[in-house]
């Protein structure tokens, strides 16, 4: 099997050769091993996804970056890449300097108690079937259930003149999806988790699944609510998606460079209620293994660290990639990420979250005269320029005089002006939960693994 480390020397030599001509060069390589084992009500499936083995060579020619990528990870092809890049001219613009960072040579590895590759496929499939069958028995309205177990072992290598870094990341996933139908209406629900580590996480939380099925039955055929502005409690999943879409994308500094993020003008200014603290942290995984978008260095060689985006309601930092940090002359944060070796690096989020506060959920609930509890977040969309937002969820439970009425509406969309929503936060829960199944696109492409998290939030929002 190809071992990335075997090519470290080739990449170092390539960087050295390229820097004889250009002011900066680097190399990134990756290799994946993954399996997906799926049991559905009427069909099972096993797949070994694309190993996505390949590399990118990068140069900065004095003016812009130029990259060569290939799926052919071999010494010969690395040399072809060097030859290709050497055909470009050096430009003599001196205003942008690419900092190669402090000298470091280190290998990193995430802790895995039971190597997921060491477990028989039959064990995976039996477990997936058993879990799927347990879900099906919870309601006769369930027409189809899919239960998937899988893992991804990812090796990544980064080399520039000062850095020789290697990381081995491993993520275990357990997720399910079911469709309910009564012949007149259909509804879908999903849940699950992804965790840093291996097969040690192959457990099944039956109580949680029961709750998801109960919510699904309430959602089936549920009406839509009357559009308007309401007092809301966002579940931690909804709060996490809110963090991600509101000031996650809005502080990716490549958007500053393109004048596409209004946040650039608000650094140091209040954008949210004083109760709000927000972070992006690829080291959150050291505390909570569900923070599975964690790593040790980003795809441009920046070592992982936590970045506080909002402190006590004040916007204090953006999330940078190498290009935007170099051009804007701001501090690098570990957010230069690629979908894969064959994609460009952009400023991207990792584990993005609202910090928890002090209010217990029941105290929050008592404060709602009329409003909705919003849960089962599905998807969202950012608008860093106009500071609009779109958050979608499957579940809006009506609250009257501090209690649930039992009425549920579905689906629900939250829209509004981001600072208005953030300023309206009047309570931050004392709980904290990570939603770990997500991927994030830049616009409508460039998918990377992310998580979002948060506590319950009490706020005012426009719902429809």
């Amino acid at each position: 099997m190809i071992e990335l480390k075997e090519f470290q020397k080739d990449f170092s030599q390539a960087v050295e050769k390229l820097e004889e001509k250009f002011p900066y060069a680097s190399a990134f390589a990756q290799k994946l091993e993954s399996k997906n084992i799926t049991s559905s009500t009427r069909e099972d499936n096993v797949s070994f996804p694309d190993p996505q083995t390949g590399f990118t060579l990068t140069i900065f020619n004095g003016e812009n970056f130029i990259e060569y990528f290939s799926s052919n990870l071999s010494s010969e092809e690395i040399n072809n890449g060097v030859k290709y890049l050497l055909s470009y001219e050096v430009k003599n613009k001196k205003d942008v300097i690419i900092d190669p960072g402090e000298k470091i040579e280190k290998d990193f590895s995430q802790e895995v108690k039971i190597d997921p590759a060491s477990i028989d496929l039959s064990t995976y499939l039996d477990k997936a079937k058993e879990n799927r069958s347990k879900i099906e028995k919870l309601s006769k309205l369930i027409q189809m259930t899919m239960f998937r177990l899988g893992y991804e072992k990812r090796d990544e290598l980064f080399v520039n003149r000062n850095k020789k870094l290697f990381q081995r990341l491993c993520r275990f996933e357990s997720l399910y999806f079911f469709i309910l139908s009564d012949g007149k209406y259909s509804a879908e629900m999903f849940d699950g988790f992804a965790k840093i580590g291996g097969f040690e996480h192959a457990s099944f939380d039956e109580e949680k699944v029961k709750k998801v099925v109960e919510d699904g039955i309430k959602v089936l055929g549920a009406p839509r609510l009357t559009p308007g502005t309401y007092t809301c409690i966002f579940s931690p999943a909804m709060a996490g998606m809110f963090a991600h879409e509101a000031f996650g994308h809005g502080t990716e500094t490549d958007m500053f460079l393109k004048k596409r993020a209004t946040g650039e003008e608000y650094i140091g200014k209040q954008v949210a209620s004083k109760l709000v603290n927000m972070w992006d942290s690829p080291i959150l995984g050291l505390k909570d293994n569900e923070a599975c978008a964690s790593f040790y260095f980003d795809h441009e060689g920046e070592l992982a660290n936590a970045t506080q985006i909002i402190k006590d309601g004040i916007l204090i930092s953006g999330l940078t990639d190498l290009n935007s940090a170099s051009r804007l002359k701001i501090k690098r944060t570990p957010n230069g990420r690629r979908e894969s070796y064959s994609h460009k690096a952009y400023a991207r989020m990792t584990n993005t979250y609202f910090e928890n506060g002090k209010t217990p959920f029941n105290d929050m609930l008592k404060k709602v005269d009329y409003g909705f509890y919003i849960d089962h977040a599905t998807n969202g969309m950012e608008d860093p320029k106009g500071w609009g937002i779109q958050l979608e969820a499957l579940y809006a439970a009506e609250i009257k005089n501090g209690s649930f009425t039992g009425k549920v509406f579905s689906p629900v969309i939250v829209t509004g002006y981001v600072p208005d929503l953030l300023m309206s936060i009047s309570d931050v829960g004392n709980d904290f939960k990570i939603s770990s199944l997500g991927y994030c696109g830049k616009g409508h492409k460039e998918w990377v693994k992310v998580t979002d998290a948060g506590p319950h939030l009490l706020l005012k929002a426009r719902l429809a």
Partner: protein
Amino acid sequence: MKNSFHQKVIDILKKQNIYFWTVKSIFEKRAESYFIFGEPENQRYGETEKHTIFLWVINEDNNGKFIGNSTATISEKSSDEEIEKTIKDAIIAAKLVKNPFFEIPQKKYQYPSFSNTDIEIKKDPSSVCYKLSSQIKDLSLKFTDVKLSTTELFVSYIEEKLTTSAENSYEFDHTKLMIEGVFLAGKNLETESFFTDQAVFIDDLKVEQILKDQASYAKDSIDAKPLSTGKYNVVFSLEALEDFFSFFYTHSNAMAVYNRFSLLKLDQPIAENLPKNSLTIKVDPQIKGGIYSAISDQYGIPLAPFTVIEKNRMNKYIAQLQYSQYLNIPYTGPATNFIIEKGDSSIEELTSKEGTVHLLRFSAFSPKDITGDFSSEIRLGYITKNGKKIPIKGGSVSGNIRNLIHTMKLTNKIVKSGSYIGPDGIYLEGVDIAGL
């Protein structure tokens, strides 16, 4: 096409005892360019190769005859031993799977001669990427009161080779262009218009028209305001079109029927109350310039056009091989390019009535394909007031296609935008807009 690795995988597969197998190799040359305010940010070029095997085995036990399948992708640098190991692992995986048996035809096919390749891109994707970038840069300078913030261009030449154990084999090459960009407008560049489009042929990507329209949308956004909350008659265009009928695509799939959640019955009307314009949805796998054009399914069975919904009636489920046999219905193959038949009004006629809203741009218009619900933040639209089109933005539009389809009218002009081929406007009455 680099055939040697493809053949190596075939030679190893032939030595195994497998009911049916397919090898699909994809070789791509891709050039990319990224600009920020007309200055280059990044230029990329690369070549990738991917070899995927699909295999099926027969599993028999006391409970009967079953079929098992698995899929594996092999790295081009794998040695013979590694390929053999991957295949053996895939066979072990397939032997664990016991799905209801279906017959995979072992016959030989004649494949249609079909080209979806732009010769200029095939010759040199980098040169096309460079030329288009220069064209965009020059054109963007012509527009006043707007600035082109960013453009990203992706130009690909892709070769596919598929071989099956029934000794069917073909090569299919195609090309792909994608553009993404953003115009900024306003005194302090406070509004933007984000756009993305894709095509197979250079001539299908109407760069000048795209830039002209988007520059105008960016400018119109400056003074656009949210509407008051209420019910409106709405014409959906542009970004809403591609996924607008996703409820019908999903529920007309035989997989949904087999899994008992489809709400569409064969030969029955598609809704209790039928649309003013009848809805006809076709699938055509070999449209020149179609983003999803294809020669065969994964079993190597040649694909042909068919009609899914004809004049408001469910005509033919989209049936892949296993579902066609499980449900005893005609085989169609997978969905490729969907084509929606046009209606009889122009977009101007539909939007001319006082109070009609025309929505073009959204945060993300992604209807729920299981329920038919749609919700999206409005990025740009127009409302007709006193005969004038007044720009609007903000708030959300929401509804359910099943509940509103009886009010639907389709426009009489067909557009090809990305993967969508159909009318340039879809009109619904009584749609909720949550605004001021």
